[in-house]
C-alpha cells in the first residue's frame, strides 16, 4: 500500500487534510483486493453458492430417506417399518379411494386456482404498472403487500370469522332478511381462500414482466391496426409469457402442496394431498405410507413445474438464452 502523498511530504506547504479513518479502511480493503489471486474468484463464486447447494443437498437427502421409507410397510403390532423393501405402499395408494379423491381434488384446485389467479392478477398488475396516478399506484402496492404481513393461517381464521353462520356476510344478509347460509367448509371455500392467498404472489411475479413491456409496443400494435383486445392477445400476452409462467409456477406449486386452507376452511372433508401426508405421519404414525404419498406429491409438483416450463419454452424465466 502506497503512502498517501499528503503524509509523505516533510511539512512543506499547507498541512494536509487529516486522513480519515474510513479512507484508511477502504485503502486496506483495496490493498487486499489487489492482492487477491484472480483464480480465487471462481472459488469464491462457488463458496457463495455453497449455502444454497447445502440446502438443496439436504432436500435431496430427505427425499432419499423418504424414498427408502416409502418402500417399507408399517407393522402396527410393533409400530416399526418392515426390514424388507416392497412396493406395497404404492399398491395400497393405487387401490385407496381416499387417495384418488384427494389427488384429483388437489390437482383440480391447482388448475382452477392457477387460472383464476392469473386472470385476476393480470388486470391488477397491469393497473399497477400502467397507472399514471401515483396515489392509485400506492394504493395498489399497499393492497399487494399488506396480505404478506398476515400469515396464511391467520387469514384462514379470518375467513372463518367473515364467512361463518354468525359472520359478517351472513349478518349483512340477515339485515336483508336472507340466510344464514353455510358459506364455509366446502370445496369452493377452500378455492376461494387459496385464490385470495395466492393472488399477491401472482401479481408480484407478473408485474415485472408487464412493466418490461414498453407502452410504445402497445402503441405500435395500435398503429398496426390492432384493437386493444387483439393487441392484448397477440402482443401483450405473448410478451408477458415469462411473467405468466412464473406466476403460474408459483401459484400452482404452492396450491398443489397447500395444507392450511383445506385444513381450516375445508371442514375436514376437503383434504389435499399434504393433509393426507400429515395424517399418515402424525395421526396414524405410518411413515411408510406417508412417505409414499409425499413422494407422489413431489413427483406431481415437479411434473407440473416441468410442464409449465416446457410450455413456456427455453429462457422463459429470463435465464440466459433466447429472449
Amino acid at each position: 500500500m502506497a503512502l498517501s502523498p499528503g503524509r509523505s511530504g516533510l511539512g512543506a506547504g499547507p498541512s494536509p487534510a487529516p486522513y480519515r479513518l474510513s479512507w484508511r479502511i477502504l485503502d486496506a480493503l483495496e490493498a487486499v483486493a489487489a492482492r487477491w489471486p484472480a483464480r480465487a474468484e471462481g472459488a469464491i463464486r462457488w463458496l457463495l453458492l455453497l449455502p444454497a447447494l447445502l440446502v438443496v443437498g439436504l432436500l435431496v437427502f430427505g427425499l432419499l430417506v423418504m424414498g427408502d421409507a416409502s418402500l417399507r410397510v408399517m407393522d402396527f403390532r410393533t409400530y416399526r417399518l418392515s426390514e424388507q423393501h416392497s412396493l406395497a405402499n404404492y399398491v395400497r395408494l393405487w387401490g385407496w379411494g381416499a387417495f384418488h379423491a384427494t389427488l384429483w381434488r388437489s390437482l383440480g384446485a391447482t388448475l382452477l386456482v392457477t387460472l383464476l389467479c392469473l386472470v385476476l392478477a393480470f388486470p391488477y398488475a397491469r393497473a399497477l404498472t400502467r397507472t399514471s396516478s401515483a396515489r392509485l399506484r400506492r394504493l395498489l402496492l399497499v393492497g399487494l403487500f399488506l396480505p404478506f404481513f398476515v400469515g396464511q393461517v391467520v387469514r384462514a381464521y379470518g375467513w372463518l370469522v367473515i364467512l361463518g353462520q354468525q359472520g359478517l356476510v351472513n349478518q349483512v344478509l340477515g339485515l336483508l332478511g336472507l340466510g344464514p347460509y353455510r358459506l364455509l367448509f366446502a370445496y369452493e371455500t377452500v378455492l376461494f381462500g387459496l385464490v385470495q392467498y395466492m393472488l399477491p404472489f401472482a401479481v408480484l411475479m407478473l408485474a415485472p414482466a408487464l412493466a418490461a413491456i414498453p407502452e410504445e409496443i402497445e402503441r405500435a400494435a395500435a398503429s398496426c391496426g390492432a384493437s386493444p383486445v387483439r393487441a392484448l392477445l397477440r402482443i401483450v400476452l405473448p410478451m408477458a409469457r415469462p411473467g405468466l409462467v412464473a406466476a403460474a409456477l408459483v401459484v400452482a406449486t404452492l396450491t398443489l402442496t397447500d395444507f392450511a386452507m383445506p385444513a381450516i376452511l375445508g371442514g375436514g372433508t376437503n383434504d389435499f394431498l399434504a393433509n393426507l401426508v400429515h395424517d399418515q405421519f402424525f395421526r396414524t404414525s405410518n411413515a411408510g405410507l406417508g412417505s409414499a404419498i409425499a413422494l407422489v406429491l413431489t413427483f406431481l409438483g415437479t411434473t407440473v413445474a416441468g410442464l409449465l416450463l416446457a410450455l413456456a419454452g427455453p429462457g422463459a424465466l429470463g435465464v440466459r438464452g433466447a429472449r
Partner: protein
Amino acid sequence: MNDPSFFTSRRRLLGSATALAAGFAVPAVLRAQEPAKPAELIVRAWGGVWVDSLKKGVSDPFTAKTGIRIRHDLTEDNEIKPRIWAAVQQGRTPPIHVNWDTTANATSSALRGVCESLADLPNLAKVLPLAKPIGLEGVPIVNLYSYVYVLAYRPEVFPGGAPTSWSVLLEPRFKGRIALYNDGIGFHPVAQVMGGGKVSDIPGNMEPCWAFIRKLKEQKPLLGEDPDFTNWFQKGEIDVACTISSNAREAKAKGVNVAWTVPKEGAKVDTDGMWIPKGLTANELYWAKRYIDFALSTEAQQVWLDGLGLPGVAPGLRPPADLVGDPSYPTTEKDFERLILIPPRIQAEHTAEWFARFKEIMQS
C-alpha cells in the same frame, strides 16, 4: 447468598421438609436413597383448560413438594411422538420427560417399545384397575382418568327433551349441522351398533360400522378436532356432535347453551394416561416417575380433574357439583354398563386401517 450450591441444597432441604409435612407417600427406604433432583422436568400437555388444570392440580403442588420446576411443552401429542421415536432409535435424549397422551396413542409407543416400565409406582396399588392398560405387557402406561364420547346437542333444537338415540344424527333437519372427529375416533363402536352390528365383532367385521358412516356422510358432517367442537357450537355452525364431554362442558362454560347425553345405544369410553420415554438419565427417570405417581394421588386428581370434569382413577374422589349423576361422569357399575371400551391395543393395531376406511368414505 450467592453460593449456588448453598441455594440449591437449601431449597432441596425445604422441598423434602414440605414433602414430609404433606405426608408424601414415599416409603422411608426409597426417600433415604433419593437420587439427585433435576432442575426441571418437561411434561407434554394439551393447551387450554387441559394444561391449566394440570398445572393447578399436579405440577404446581409437585414443585412445591419437591422444588423441581415443571415446564409444559404444548407440542401436539401426534407431533411429539415421531420425535420421541427418533430420539430413542438414535440413542439421543428424548425431548420431554413425561408424556400426557391418549391411551390409544400411547399404546402405539408402548408397542414400539419406547416406554419405561411404570410397574413400581407406589400409588398404582391404590387406584382403580382401569389405571393399568389392558392387553399390554407390564405397565408401560398409566391411565389417569376416563372420558366419554357423548352426544352433545343444542337444547333448543330438542324442545321435547334430550335425544335418546344416535339416530338423530340422520335427521334431515341436521344436514350440514352435525360434527364428528376428523379421524372418526370415538364413533366406531357406536356406528357399529347403529349399523346393526355387534361390538364384539370389532375389529373382525366392521362392515355395519362403515355402512352407518356412509349414511352419515350424506348428512354432510363437519369434521374437526377438540377445539373445533367448542368453537362450532359457539359460532352456531352445528346442532349435534359426537365429542368428548369436556368440549361440550367448555362450550357451556363459555355461555353457549349446550347439553349432552349418553343415548340408549351407549357411547365410547376412553382413557388418557402418562408415560415416560426411554433414554432419560436414572435420576430424571426417578423424578419423572414420582411426577406420574403424584398424578395418581387423590390429592392431585381431585383438583386436576375437577377442572376437566372427568372421572379419575384415584379412590374417594368427589365429582364436581355440576356433574353429579351425569352420564358422562361414570362412577357406578351401572354407569359403566352403557359405555363401550375398546381395548387400546386393538385400537392401536387398527387405527391406521380404520382411519383409511373413514377417510375413504368422507373424502370421496
